[in-house]
């Protein structure tokens, strides 16, 4: 299928830089909050794990009693799983 030169050029320039780098090149005010700040990203991760912990805890109250289970839940949710996920993605590339 024939494509006009101008259109092909626009497409190639759009993908000449990886999307995340392109987003990082935006002014800070236009970047999504989670991309701007690693601290906001960390806080969001803790909040998500917290909500999941509360939901599981309401179903199974023993989870709320035990400090060992509570801290292990956090450790798996914010440290083990993200680390495993990053390794898997690296291995995929």
């Amino acid at each position: 299928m024939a494509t006009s030169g101008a259109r092909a050029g626009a497409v190639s320039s759009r993908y000449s830089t990886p999307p995340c780098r392109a987003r990082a090149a935006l002014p800070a005010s236009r970047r999504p909050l989670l991309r701007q700040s690693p601290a906001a990203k960390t806080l969001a991760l803790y909040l998500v794990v917290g909500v999941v912990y509360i939901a599981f805890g309401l179903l199974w109250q023993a989870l709320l009693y035990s400090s060992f289970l509570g801290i292990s839940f956090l450790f798996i949710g914010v440290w083990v799983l993200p680390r495993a996920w990053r390794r898997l993605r690296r291995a995929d590339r």
Partner: protein
Amino acid sequence: LSWVAHDMEPYTFQAELKTKVAFLPLMLGSWSPDLFTKWFVYGDSIFGTTLRASNPTQFHRGWPGAGFTHSLAYGVLIGLLIYAFSHSRIWAVSFVIGSWAHVLTDVGDTVGTMLFFPFSTYHVSLGAWAYAGQLGRMTDAAAYFSGLGWVWDGVWVLLAVYFAFRGLLSTRYFRSIIYPTDPFWAWIGRRGVPESAMVVLYRGVFFWGTCRWIAWLIWAHVVHSYPFDLSWGGPHWVMAEHL
């Protein structure tokens, strides 16, 4: 008894005292009075056999019983033992501060604590919220999160959240204050635990305490319909224990 205050107090003390205390013994001190006794107060089933104190309140706070763990002298005694074995002043002092915080917080319920044991077995009590440990875990949770105990926990949660927003839980704070004041972190570091994992462990009790404070509140008032009673000594729908 308190459900979440004992988890959150060490963070507030840490924020105020900075390098004068070590976080881990502060937390262990705060947990220690209930660490080996609370399960026996509520009872637990092991291989089909239920183990439970015949008089849970007497066992938890009284004498004879394990009530000596809720005294000022207990913290000092364990602090001296820690100093004798480790020669670490900061560990001993931090443990004493944590333990005293626990003992003084528990003065708020209707049973109170034997603050001046072994010189006196008198229970110092403000009677602000009902002690219902003798009725089992669930009733205790429902009563605690319906009375002033829940409010008192909330004060400590809010203080810890306030300090968290001022950087108490940041990696930078961990690196500059928590890590250098306690050789424990370097010790686990030498055993292969990375700094990022240590920071998660340091934040762990804050996360656990805050989440369960919210979760028990939802459990008591949304999942179930236990009525709030924020009057002094309440909730009055539960049979509060006294010694």
